């Protein structure tokens, strides 16, 4: 991945020198040419095409924004209810992710999803403790966190 980005930057700089115009616009044009070349010559370069991974990162960002808006609407509904009904509680979620970066990302995503807030992480990184607004449907939220977020993060990092 890093190797491909370096090749892409070299192609962009070469495009600038060949054009003899050292502006940002020609750099961007060279970068686009480099992407095209890397895509065509993908067979001769180690690793898969790196824009695939970039696409997955963009997908993760859009997931993040969608969940943020949904959770906001939920919270606002709860705030303006006359008699808000809570059944709060803290539950435990077993983690499949291992490295520190992945767990940080997952904790941030959990905090911004509807009705859940990450409270703490166990000492051996094996569990994460989550405070939920409605403790009754924890199975539902465990399944959604496992299915959407952990899968999306794994696709990006591995």
């Amino acid at each position: 991945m890093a190797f491909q980005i370096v090749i892409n930057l070299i192609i962009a700089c070469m495009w600038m020198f060949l054009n003899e115009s050292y502006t940002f616009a020609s750099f961007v044009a060279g970068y686009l040419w480099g992407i095209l070349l890397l895509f065509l010559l993908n067979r001769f370069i180690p690793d898969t095409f790196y824009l695939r991974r970039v696409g997955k990162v963009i997908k993760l960002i859009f997931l993040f924004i969608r969940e943020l808006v949904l959770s906001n609407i939920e919270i606002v509904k709860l705030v303006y209810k006359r008699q808000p009904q809570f059944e709060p509680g803290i539950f435990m979620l077993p983690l499949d992710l291992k490295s520190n970066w992945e767990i940080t990302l997952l904790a941030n995503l959990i905090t911004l999803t509807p009705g859940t807030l990450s409270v703490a992480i166990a000492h051996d990184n094996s569990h994460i403790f989550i405070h939920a607004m409605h403790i009754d449907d924890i199975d539902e939220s465990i399944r959604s966190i496992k299915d959407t977020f952990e899968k999306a993060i794994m696709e990006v990092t591995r």
Partner: protein
Amino acid sequence: MIETGIDITLNISVSLFILIGTFFVLSSSLGIARFPDIYTRLHAATKASTLGISSMLIGTFLFLYAEHDIVSGKLLLAIVFILLTAPVSGHMISRAAHKSGVKPVTANRSDAYEDALQKHRKNS
């Protein structure tokens, strides 16, 4: 003719963004004032205020672009920064509250973190 049309659209959209942002920020504060315990208050503080402040900053960004033709990167950086840091500060405060002994209001005493902490203390 076209330019005045663009100006009108920009003005209307800036006021819409600012009003939506103010609504979310106000409801987050209302949640902080109304909810029963610290953890539910953190729900309100971390979620609603991030979207509210991002919406207000987007409104300011559009306004500065319309008036000055400035593409202000600092405001966009501030939005990214708020989106990244609000969950982190919520996590820190909730862990600190739990460690300093604030009991959550729970339905049928479902506090897995307390159980795990007690188990850890017993083992060590």
